[in-house]
């Protein structure tokens, strides 16, 4: 039954990482879309009665900032795939990611 222990041990780590990246990033992406829409005056829930409000540069900027975070996340994922293939691994022990030889 040792395998069950190892599997559950691996499973919760995968779950945490999956939730952070697999649900977290698309949620940020959705927030980005909403900010962008709000910035252009088109998020209708906030102003249900009025016609599209004027432009809100803050929303547009925030939207693009969120997209940037998502893209960085994706790039990290790509770096991870590529680097492990070439004998490096992504190391997060300095908070910011660095490449170290395996």
């Amino acid at each position: 039954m040792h395998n069950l222990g190892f599997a559950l041990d691996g499973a919760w780590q995968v779950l945490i990482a999956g939730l952070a990246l697999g649900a977290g990033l698309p949620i940020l992406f959705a927030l980005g879309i909403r900010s962008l829409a709000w910035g252009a005056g088109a998020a209708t829930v906030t102003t249900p009665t009025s016609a599209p409000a004027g432009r809100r540069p803050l929303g547009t900027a925030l939207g693009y900032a969120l997209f940037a975070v998502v893209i960085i996340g994706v790039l990290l994922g790509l770096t991870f795939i590529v680097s492990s293939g070439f004998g490096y691994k992504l190391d997060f022990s300095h908070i910011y990611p660095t490449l170290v030889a395996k």
Partner: protein
Amino acid sequence: MILALVVITALAFDFTNGFHDTANAMATSIATKALRPKTAVALSGALNLVGAFLSVEVALTVTNAVVKIQDKSGAPKAELLADGGSTLLLIILAGLVGGIVWNLLTWLLGLPSSSSHALFGGLVGATLAGLGIAGVNWNGDGSKLDGVVGKVLLPAVISPVIAGAVAALGTWVIFKITTGVAARFTEQGFRWGQIGSASLVSLAHGTNDAQKTMGVITLALIASGHWSDLENIPLWVKVSAAFAIAAGTYLGGWRIIRTLGKGITDINPPQGTAAQSGAAAVILASSHLGFALSTTHVATGSVIGSGLGRPGAKVRWAVAGRMALAWLITLPSAALIGALMFWVGDAVGGTAGALVVFTLLCIASVAMYLRSRTGKVDHENVNDDWDGDSPSTTGTPATTSSVPAVAAN
């Protein structure tokens, strides 16, 4: 001669692996029309090709997960080389045939089953037939997650649940956030979200799955004395395996794409984004942590999860249940075919035996291809409504009746 058959069969397996798994990456993007079907398979094929070259890690020990025909360094066991490696080659050949036949059969039925499990099943069956029960690595040696239980059974149960949970949460929150946002923002935005996340899945698939074939071919080369370097894979093996999986992906397993994209639940762009991101994250995290899993199980789990997470969406549990059943029987069925093939090949013996096995494979493949011509699913009708009188790919009496015919092969 036997070696040539093994190499061809391994590349054929790689090809079926490709078209069987196109759906994992692209079914949702095709279903939501984020990408046109042909564009989607071309993108996925190209990324699989790139992925296959990106990963230079030697996957020579791939068979060690389930059978004991290699030692830890990847060299074939010495006692198996006594007869010039021909038993070992026959085991590999029979195992590959088991994997291919099962892949084709599940494709015919439009069921997304795991190609890795089919390969492992075939190898387990052929090893059981060739070396007996002790030749199979059932449970590992207790030091890590290993063996049939640890590398195949447990991940198959756990990974779809994880992926489903991630996708369900992602979908639910995304729908909360974007309620009421004008469609012109959500449509465009999530279209790109889907394309991006689906591309990641394709790339990860190329790096993972092409490796398995490269490992198997190299093992066969070593067993027959044509290669001795345990640290590297011959370049031509890498190139041919990469192109085989990319070509398979480009061909597209439309039947499976249809089941995954339209059959389980009706997907819209935000759901597709959540499902593919969840799948990509779970696949990458698992391979980082050495938690073996099947891309197929993850992708299916996340599609079901995205159906559960969206308010008002319904999951067709009958379809999901049929898939779960296919997962359960993938390993034993491929094992049965693998074992039968080994017995046949062994009874005939030598090169002739390998030829007979190869011929049986060809007959079975052609039979299933011809069967697929009736009720054809391709890029034209892949998105037709599921509940309608469109060509149904699953579970009709006519399609299931082809099972015994194939088993008889």
